[in-house]
């Protein structure tokens, strides 16, 4: 581990390279540790980059017993972790406007204190609580993912 990784809880951002699906497990641990008490995590990245796969792995670590699937159609799925905590899995892929987000009652979820894992978060990027965690996945080639984790979107 590099020194930057050791201090990931304090660092503002870090990056990781994922070359096989098994590596999401270790990544998820680090991510949960980094997020700490800030429970809103946004996952951006192109289609097929592994957003749902990563969230499945995170939910496994939180001991969610429900089937974790893509909420693209449903927009919000609700799960329970083993200690009965609520986990929200959200997906704004088919949301077209901010007004639709308002109509959803987004603040009930994002400010609930529960885990919120958000796929396709672009429509809500200005509505996320401060200190939300951003996970940006880019696809280098078929098998390689570069992931940037930060407290703020699009900053150095």
């Amino acid at each position: 581990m590099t020194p930057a990784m050791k201090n990931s809880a304090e660092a503002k951002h870090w990056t990781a390279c994922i070359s096989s699906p098994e590596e999401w497990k270790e990544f998820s641990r680090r991510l949960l540790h980094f997020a700490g008490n800030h429970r809103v995590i946004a996952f951006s990245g192109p289609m097929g980059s592994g957003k749902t796969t990563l969230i499945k792995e995170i939910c496994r670590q939180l001991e969610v017993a429900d089937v974790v699937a893509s909420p693209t159609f449903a927009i919000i799925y609700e799960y329970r972790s083993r200690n009965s905590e609520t986990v929200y899995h959200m997906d704004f892929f088919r949301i077209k406007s901010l007004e639709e987000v308002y109509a959803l009652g987004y603040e009930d979820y994002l400010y609930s204190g529960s885990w919120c894992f958000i796929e396709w978060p672009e429509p809500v990027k200005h509505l996320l609580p401060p200190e939300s965690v951003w996970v940006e996945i880019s696809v280098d080639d078929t098998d390689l993912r570069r992931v940037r984790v930060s407290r703020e979107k699009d900053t150095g």
Partner: protein
Amino acid sequence: MHVTILAIESSCDDTSAALVRNGIVLSNLIANQKVHRNYGGVVPELASRAHQQHVVPVVDQALKEAGVEKNRLSAVAFTQGPGLLGSLLVGVSFAKGLALSLGIPLIGVNHLHAHIMAHWAGEPGKKVKTPGFPFLCLLVSGGHTQLVVARGFLEMEVIGQTIDDAAGEAFDKCAKVLGIPYPGGPVIDRLSREGDPHAFAFARPRIGGLDFSFSGLKTSFLYLVHDEVEKNPRFIEERKADLSASIQHTIVEVLMDKLEKASEQTGIREIGIAGGVSANQALRDALEERAKRYGWNIYIPEFIYTTDNAGMIGVTAYYKYLAGERTGQETVPLARFPM
């Protein structure tokens, strides 16, 4: 004695109301421009989330169309879940208020259960061919992909489901890769008629048992298109029909493989499909082909009953009513509501 039920569905995008008498659907309306015109209003811009604006006009219209007075109702039914909490809440609250004011029972219905029960939705003067029990149903929609065994009207068991994307979502997202706006599934169906289903091969999911996975297939499609576009920028344009037909064929085969397996394992030959994707022509053709090959009796509800509609909620509520099932006024919507 007649059992007349007003049913309300508001689990996701559409608000719908239906009148069901003795299991027969008298009216089944989904809020749209016409409903609003008759009520003297217009459809709001945010139609998909505006259940609040839709619910009164659509219920009013459903009662009028069925020619039923409110005071003749036996019960009020509503979709209790699963779905979006905010959307469900509108239907639940409306149903509670109405039932309370009329002094009649409330019946909460599981949305997925109702999709299966759509097979029993009859209409006045129309004979519907209904499945016998046990009945094996493949529920396929934008949000769901499940294999369900119904042992009775109220006995449902999920024996397989998707572990990532729903089949309808696979259609919609592959369509998006081809530049077709969401939800593009029906466009894929149309384009496929002109294309070769064997033009391209994609990685099939390797998942055991009766569960489904479509995420890898979507990615395989995406990579193929990306690679080909790099070589030829006009690739999508030139091969849209073949790409559509090939991905559709693959999705349908994946669904059929599991359905065959489920039939084999359970020994059930009363087999149906339900949910929005059951409108897909290739899926219907494949089901008919299997029916001939394996001697299945197959069932497909009419289109209106495959989408999210209150008719299926009312039909389900009718059988719950007969079984004496009632829901208390203290009830709440359930975003998470396994069948």
